């Protein structure tokens, strides 16, 4: 995936230096203080500007704020990924967009705006999904900041950053393989921000309970005993739409007013049958699109906290947030900092992949035999899978006859024939261990 055109930026021609431009941040960066971290060095602004690449994931409510904050805090090499286009309902908070931009990719418009507004800053936009890139892409970034509105992509990037960790022969983490993640999230007047050093602090997967799963109504309530207006709308959405096919084979598009109007009407009919009140167009749209309320102010606070942490990571001028803060300003203004513990058996961050060195010509059988014979592992009959772009790929599954027969031909294939690239993970299960093993294949 290539970076998109950065848009006409005058910053290259116009001088981006003027007297005292950075004088505020220089007060903190050019003078040390008792609260600086031990590794703090004075006068690092030019070096960090040159070498520090920041990736912002998401160019929505948090993303717009993050880009502004990072640019104003002296970061000049920034990339942003977002797969969305601009909608009218974004404009109450996503302040880099105007009505004329509706329909255009968020990443591109946001990058253009910042590049034009803040001289010398270069934001590179990617109108893409995070899954479109691999570790090679992500490892170019010093710090990654997320402003996402869903859990799945957070888990994806978390897993990727954890999988990029490497350990030396004493199982000690190689520090240059750590790519810190700063993550923010908001919902209405509530928000949270966290700083994560994969392999050191609790990761997203360690604290999955912080993100409660969406509540779904039981199907029997929707079908037989609706009580709330929401039940009627969900019924129309899940049962009546696929049955009536009001617009042919199309799926529901929450942004298509005709679709919402149809659902609204049918929901009203269903509600009338049961004597239920309170169905409005707004409620219908909210239920169909699962809309999460959002305001400018909460996004501003959370994104600013995230950007401040990025600044602290980049310069070590102050200690970082340890490691998670909750924010809520419905009743007064409330913050709470907590330090969740790592899960000892976390699937993402506690697996230390071990290096296995083999020539490209080695077969899968050679590798598995090694695991059986090596005094360190002494496996009995290992099975193997590996993660690829398309997802988890099964290589060999012993024990279940049908699967064994199906995967046996892989044993005689070389690693190269199986598509292994240098550093790719090999996941091994064996009845000698309740949990799996993760190895990294390194070519000799």
């Amino acid at each position, binding site marked *: 995936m290539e970076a998109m055109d950065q848009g006409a930026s005058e910053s290259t021609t*116009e001088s981006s230096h*003027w007297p*005292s*431009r950075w*004088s*505020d941040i220089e*007060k*903190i960066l050019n*003078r*040390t*203080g008792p609260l600086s971290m031990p590794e703090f060095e004075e006068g690092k602004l030019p070096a960090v500007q040159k070498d520090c690449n920041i990736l912002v994931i998401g160019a929505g409510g948090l993303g717009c*704020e993050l880009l*502004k*904050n990072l640019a*104003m*805090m002296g970061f000049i090499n920034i990339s942003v990924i977002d797969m969305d286009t601009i909608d009218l*309902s974004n*404009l*109450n*908070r996503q*302040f880099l967009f105007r*009505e004329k931009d509706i329909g255009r990719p968020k990443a591109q418009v946001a990058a253009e705006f910042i590049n034009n*507004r803040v*001289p010398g800053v270069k934001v590179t936009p990617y109108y893409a999904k995070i899954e479109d890139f691999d570790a090679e892409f992500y490892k170019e970034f010093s710090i990654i900041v997320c402003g996402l509105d869903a859990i799945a992509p957070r888990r994806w990037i978390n897993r990727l950053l954890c999988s990029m960790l490497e350990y030396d022969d004493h199982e000690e983490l190689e520090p240059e393989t750590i790519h810190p993640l700063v993550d923010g999230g908001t919902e*209405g*007047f509530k928000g949270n921000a966290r700083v994560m050093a994969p392999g050191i602090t609790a990761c997203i997967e360690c604290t999955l309970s912080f993100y409660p799963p969406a509540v779904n109504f039981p199907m029997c309530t929707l079908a*037989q*005993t609706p009580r709330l207006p929401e039940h009627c709308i969900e019924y129309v959405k899940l049962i009546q739409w696929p049955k009536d096919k009001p617009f042919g084979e199309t799926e529901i598009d929450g942004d298509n007013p005709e679709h919402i109007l149809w659902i*609204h009407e049918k929901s009203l009919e269903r509600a009338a049958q*049961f*004597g*239920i009140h309170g169905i409005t*167009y*707004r409620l219908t749209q*909210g239920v169909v699109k699962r*809309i999460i*309320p*959002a*305001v*400018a*102010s909460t*996004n*501003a*606070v959370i994104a*600013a*906290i995230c*950007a*401040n*942490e990025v*600044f602290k990571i980049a310069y070590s001028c*102050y200690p970082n*947030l340890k490691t998670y803060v909750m924010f809520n*300003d*419905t*009743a*007064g*203004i*409330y*913050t709470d*900092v907590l330090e969740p513990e790592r899960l000892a058996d976390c699937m993402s961050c506690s697996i230390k992949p071990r290096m296995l060195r083999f020539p490209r010509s080695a077969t899968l059988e050679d590798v598995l035999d090694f695991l059986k014979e090596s005094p360190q592992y002494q496996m009995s009959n290992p099975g193997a899978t590996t993660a690829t772009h398309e997802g988890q790929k099964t290589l060999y599954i012993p024990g279940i006859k049908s699967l064994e027969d199906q995967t046996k031909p892989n044993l005689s294939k070389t690693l190269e024939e199986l598509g292994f690239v240098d550093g790719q993970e090999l996941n091994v299960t064996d009845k000698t261990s309740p949990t799996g093993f993760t190895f990294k294949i390194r070519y000799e």
Partner: protein
Amino acid sequence: MASTRGKFETRSPENEKTKKYDRQLRLWGDHGQSFLENARVCLINATATGTEILKGLVLPGIGAFTIVDGNNVTGEDVGRNFFLLKHSIGSNRGSAACQQLLELNPHVRGDYIDESCETLLATNPSYFTTFSVVIATGMPESTVLQLSKLLHVANVPLLLCKSFGQIGYIRLQTPEHTIIESHPDDGFDDLRLTDPFPGLRKHVDSIDLESLSRAEHAHVPYIVILLKALDRWREKHGPTSLPTYSEKKDFESIIESLKFKHHEGDDTPHVEPLNFEEAIKARARTLRKTEIPDNVKKLFEDKECENLNPKSKPFWIMVRALRDFVAVNGTLPLRGSIPDMTSDSDSYVRLAGVYKTEADKHCEDICNRVNEILTALGKPLDIVCEPEIHILCRNSHTLDVLRTRPIFEEYERPKSNLITDSLRNNYQPEEPEIVYYVLLRAVDKFFESFKRYPGCLTHLMETDISKLKSIYSKLVQEWGIGPFPKDDLIHEMCRFGASELHTIASVVGGCAAQEVIKVVTHQYVPINNTFIFNGILCTSTTFDL
């Protein structure tokens, strides 16, 4: 006063403005939006903190803003303020910021006055009293005091904001702020089970559990089950008795005894009925005496409620009507909604209807009472409209009034005990936020003496540290507070050197914008009264100073 009726009009679904504001209308509603759109705010000084606050108000659609600023844009300003451009260096700061802020939302009006706050206070002080809220940033102590006195008398809320290095500061001064919808997080269900109203009594009595089929029985709403169980309990323990925590088991066995009875030869497999499970779970939450919350009692005793006069605000007239209602009925008006629960549609809808009918009756009583009061005061009836009374009735248990201590009083008579307690009762290894409050005040004193901020010139760092330290010590002595913090923070305050970091300005900007929204919509609860944010630890505390 203009009619308030307009603000409750329902908007058509395809309105472009409602589409744009959709995500926030789901929080504060069309009526909240209408308050916001009718508000006019004044920002004193287009600092980075100031423009970030306005951004948080212009985006959701505040009616209008005015920037009062006599300064010209400097290179430093452009370096930290996203709403000032390089080519504006040298021109008026308010004018330059106004132009960029207006771009954010075509529905908002904005202008500026090219004069300093100090000049305007001298020539036309009443100008400031025409706004819904005044937001002040980048002001020396002497100006803060003048403005605080002026706005306190005029009953105009003042929000004083500051970003100083990694420290954020917000101070709200509001002589009287009334809150109708607090939107508390704990969903409170007003079910009246301990003292059922006649409609509910009749409805529950009309249901005979024994005569129901197994399927019907499994769909009886838990409200009915709990009330039937309570009836049995009271037959034994007295007509007003409620099961205590230690009697929980006895009460649960009554609930058990109401379960569907198996008949001989019935071989339907046994399934635990969800509605009975819900009844057991809801016991502690719902079998409580319906009481008047303290915040509401406080309102009833308030002098504004006591001494109604033709100048009384609609809020107090409604509170008085509420008090009169309570005097007759003993309880607040019923909220009229019930939570979702296992039930068939018909049973649920009928039960919900019973609550709704009673609530409507209460609301009507209060509407009538409001009209009587208005007539007695010789005021037109349309200054309070029915939808407003409806909202008040639904939220009568969360009503509140906030009268913050004025800033000039805080400066004249600091709360030494509170500050000392906050210093002592800190069990964290880090210094408590109150230290930064005292330090910020010391910094202001430093400015009054030397006409510059400590640490803003690097070659004077060392002398500034010792100067600030002696000012701080003097302040601590004067106020009679202690113990001392470590010198570390005095050093860090000088390192900050009055820098306005963009990130801290944005944290303050977001928080302050939301406080303004609370003030103008009368929804949610504002701070009382001083909020300190520590960006180093990402912690914060609010103090009533």
